Every structure is written in structure tokens, then in C-alpha cells.
């Protein structure tokens, strides 16, 4: 008993080290979690989280009857499905191609360039997109371009149908390099002996990719995909808010859960706050269920790769 007490006392300096991080996480993560009770309240900023009156499930009832909420949910899921499926194909292809380059320096240079957009903020990327699409003088609306295709200037920021494609391109541009690096790192772990043996057996490069490279990536692909599916109800706020410049005309194809939650919170008074709180609580709960089940599936496939 005494020994354990001394040990605990000796460890006090170690426990003290937790304090700053513990406090920050408490303030910025746990307090807001307790704050989710506002989803069951009639929110007004003056009375805050604790003073506002309870209204039960009223906010959720409103949410269910709100067509924009359903739209946002649909868009979120659809965009994620497209991003996930195409992302894997692009990234794996790029990684395999990169691994084929003999010249190590060239390979490094390519990688460095492809990852670059990942480090730019979505505000910057919104400017880059604007340089292409701007109505008066954007690159796709400049004189040379418009003459070449004999068309007229297009006001892209009101063309609803174009945005699924535009956002798809922007997202791919930003993230492909990054995800291919992850796969490339996984490929570095493949036993080179396998390739040597295949060469002796007279296998072509194509055969080696099909029979050695891709099968050994199978697990990490499955795991990354499942993890992405776990996040299917959330989306990159910056991509859907900054890049379309929050243009109201585009909402039918650009509004996703995260932007819905933000716009309801900012611009729609007390009713909006209720919708915002209810929507983000729903998003958190669904997200939690998805991630935990995704992890359970990953655990089944490969214990080592499970997140927890």
C-alpha cells in the first residue's frame, strides 16, 4: 500500500503535464458536447445554452419537414460516394504509375508537384477557381477562349448543373496527390523478392502489377475506403462554401450538411438556430455510428489496421 502511494506521489509531475492539453480539450470539445442539449431547446443567444427553454423534439420535427435539410443530406452522401469511389481508382493508378519510374529524382519531383495543392487553403483554391470561372474575364470566359469555341460568356456561378463536375475536379486536384502518396508508402512495404521471382518466371510488368502490386494494396484500399464511408455524413466545409462563393443560386447542387448547419446558424434567426443544432446533432450521432461500425468491419478484416 505504502509503495503504491509513493509511486503515485512520484508520478505527480507526470500527471501535471496533462493539465494544459486536458483543459483545452475540455473547453473546445467536451463543453460543446454537453452543449448539444440545445438541440432540444428553443435557442436564444441571450439565455445561452442553459437558460433557453426546453422544447423537446420540436427542432427535429422542423428539420424532418425542411426540404433543404434533405437536399443537404442527399448532396452530402452523393458527393462522398463519388469522391470515395473515383478517389481510390485515381490514387491507386497514380501510385502504381509513380512506382514504375526508374529515375528516382524525377519521381520525387512529380510527387512534390502533385501534393502541392494539398497545402493550399480552400480560400486560396476558391480564388484559383475564380480565376477560371469569373464571368467578366475568367480564363474560361476570356476573349480567346470564347472566340475559339464560338460561344458566349458563361456565368458559371449561377450554372447549377455544372457544379457537381467543378467540385469534383477541384476536390480531385486538391487530394489526389496526397492519397496516392499514402498508397505509394504502402507499396514500399512490398517484398522486392516477389518481383524478382516473377521476373525470373518471365512475368511482364503488367502481370506483376495485376498479380503482386494490386493484391498487396487490397487491405489498405479496403481500410481507407471503409474509413471514408465512416465519414459519409460530413464534408469538407471549405470546398462547398468557399469554392462556389456561397452563391445562393447554386445551393441545389452545392449545399451539404456542413454548409447547411453553418448557414442556418448564421442567417436564419431563432428557427434557423434550432435547425442548425438539430442537424449537427444528427450529423454527429450518425457519424459516430458510422465510424464505430466502419471500425468494427476493419477489425474483422485486419485487426492491426483498426483505429481502435
Amino acid at each position, binding site marked *: 500500500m505504502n509503495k503504491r502511494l509513493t509511486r503515485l506521489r512520484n508520478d505527480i*509531475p*507526470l500527471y501535471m503535464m496533462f493539465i494544459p492539453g486536458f483543459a483545452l480539450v475540455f473547453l473546445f470539445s467536451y463543453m*460543446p*458536447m454537453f452543449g448539444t442539449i440545445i438541440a432540444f431547446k428553443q435557442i436564444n*443567444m441571450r439565455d445561452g445554452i442553459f437558460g433557453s427553454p426546453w422544447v423537446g423534439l420540436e427542432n427535429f420535427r422542423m428539420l424532418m419537414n425542411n426540404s433543404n435539410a434533405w437536399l443537404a443530406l442527399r448532396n452530402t452522401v452523393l458527393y462522398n460516394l463519388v469522391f470515395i469511389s473515383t478517389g481510390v481508382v485515381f490514387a491507386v493508378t497514380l501510385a502504381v504509375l509513380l512506382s514504375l519510374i526508374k529515375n528516382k529524382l524525377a519521381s520525387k519531383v512529380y510527387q512534390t508537384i502533385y501534393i502541392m495543392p494539398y497545402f*493550399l487553403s480552400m480560400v486560396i483554391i476558391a480564388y484559383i477557381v475564380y*480565376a477560371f470561372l469569373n464571368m467578366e474575364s475568367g480564363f474560361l470566359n476570356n476573349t480567346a477562349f470564347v472566340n475559339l469555341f464560338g460561344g458566349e460568356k458563361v456565368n458559371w456561378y449561377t450554372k447549377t448543373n455544372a457544379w457537381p463536375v467543378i467540385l469534383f475536379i477541384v476536390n480531385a*486536384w486538391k487530394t489526389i496527390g496526397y492519397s496516392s502518396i499514402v498508397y505509394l508508402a*504502402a507499396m514500399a512495404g512490398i517484398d522486392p523478392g516477389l518481383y524478382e521471382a516473377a521476373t525470373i518466371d518471365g512475368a511482364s510488368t503488367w502481370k506483376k502489377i495485376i498479380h503482386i502490386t494490386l493484391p498487396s494494396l487490397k487491405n489498405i484500399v479496403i481500410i481507407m475506403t471503409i474509413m471514408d464511408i465512416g465519414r459519409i455524413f460530413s464534408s469538407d466545409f471549405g470546398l462547398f462554401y468557399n469554392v462556389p462563393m456561397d452563391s445562393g443560386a447554386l445551393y441545389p447542387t452545392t449545399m451539404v450538411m456542413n454548409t447547411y448547419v453553418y448557414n442556418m446558424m448564421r442567417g436564419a434567426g431563432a428557427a434557423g438556430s434550432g435547425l442548425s443544432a438539430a442537424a449537427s446533432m444528427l450529423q454527429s450521432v450518425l457519424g*459516430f455510428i458510422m465510424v464505430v461500425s466502419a471500425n468494427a468491419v476493419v477489425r474483422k478484416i485486419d485487426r492491426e489496421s483498426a483505429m481502435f
Partner: protein
Amino acid sequence: MEISNKFVNALIHLLFLALVVVFVFPILLVIIISFTDQSTINNFGYQIIPAQTSLDAYRYIFTSDMGVGHAYLVTIGSTVCGTLISVMVMALYAYPLSRPGLKGKGFFTFYIFFTMLFSGGLLAWYIMVTKYYHMGNTILALILPLAMSPWYTIIMRTFFQTTIPMSVIESAKIDGAGEMKILISLVLPLAKPAIATIALFQTLAYWNDWFNPMLLITDKNLYNLQFLLQVMMKNIQMLSDSAMSAEVASRFAGNIPEDAVRMALCVVAMGPILIVYPFFQKYFIQGLTIGAVKG
């Protein structure tokens, strides 16, 4: 594994070069526009090779009262302070977690890990931070929300665990060193590669942050560069409305090079990243794959 067929090899390189253009061109376009003369833009739109170049946009940015210089200072200040504070806080949290046999380790790990799975939602967060902590329109709003990343903390813990032998710590203890001293003079130097990479990514997170100011800042004196850019994008008018000193006003005589200025702002904000990027390229790539170290 390599390609023996010369033709296929050339084809692959061609594809990669095409991709290089795809990745570089958009950024280059922004830079070119920022140096284009406004009347050229008015006549022809944005071009790859502008008929007439001009430095007006940059002159305008640094002489008008748009607050670019000030926003730069806010960005640099919050990035430096933020990175230092966050690396310190995370190292302090990660070190005890890396010690075998510490009681309650499971709880402290779960405590931060759970926040990656569940969040309280934007509105609750916003009300807490503004109404209860009164952090709206303070410099703290730009620093504290990003300071503690559970993910990087767990990575750091794993790194401490796997690279620093317990025997080294034990012998330092026998020599009478306190835990704090062990962390600072023994563990951190040994963990330099991980610390450097995480510091780099935190620097980037602070430099690129527009989300927290968007929620919490309305005072123009606390605009950082990214947020200033975001506001400018939404409110094109602000460019022409921003109060000008008489000297600037007379120089531009009401003809603000609007398009070029906007893109020049963008160049000014991404410039440092693009300049630094090639030199730290190794750490950037390392940081992307560091998560692969099993937590």
C-alpha cells in the same frame, strides 16, 4: 519493377508531364493575372501571356488601407505563437502517455481519442466560445481552438514510445533529473524528426486558418490574411470602398486594378508556402505518411 519497353516508358513520362501542367497551371495563372495590366484584363480577360504587364496591383496592396500588412502581422503572430504553444501542449500530453505503467493512461488516451469520434456540433461550440468564454474578437480565438490535436498527440506518443528507450529515462532519473527536465533535455531532442514534422503541419494549419476567424472575428484589427482574402472574395465592393489615403487615391485616380489586386492578394497569401515548400518537401511528405505509424 521497371518498364523495359522504351515506348511505354516515354508514354508514362508524357502522362506525368501533362499532370505537372494540370497541377501547376492554375497556380501560375493566378500569378500571371496578378501582374497583368487592368486595361488588358478589361479588354481580353485573363490570358496566359498578357499583352501588358504591370505592378500596380502590388503597389496598390501595399499602399492602400486594405490592411494587408496588418493582416500579415496577425497571421505571422498567431502562427508563431500557435505553433509553439500547440507543440508544447501536445508534447506535454504525449510524454506521460508514452510512459509504461502510468496509472490512468487508458483514461487519458480515451479522453482525447473520443473527441475524434464525436463532436458537439458547430452551434454549441460557437455559443460556448463566444458567450461563455468571451473569446470572440480576441487573438486567443486564432490560437487556442487549433492548439490541441488529438491525432498528432497520439502520433507523438507512439513516436516517444518506440524511439526512446526506457533505460535512458531510468538512468536520467537515477542521476536525479526531474520529469520536466527529462522531457525537455532528453526526450524532445531525441524525437526531433517527429516534432519537426508536426510543428510544420501545425504551422500550416495556423497559416491557412480562415474558419476560426470566420466564426469568431469581426474586428478588422484581428483579420488574418486568409480571412481578409475570404472577406474580399465575398465582398468585391470592399476593394473600392476601402478608405484610401489621398496619395494612393490620386495615384490610382479611382481606377483600382480590381482583378489583379484580388489575385495579387492570393499570391501574397500563398507565396510563403510555395517558396518554403520545395525545401521542406521531405518533411511535408513525411507528415502525410506519419499517420501510418500505428497509434
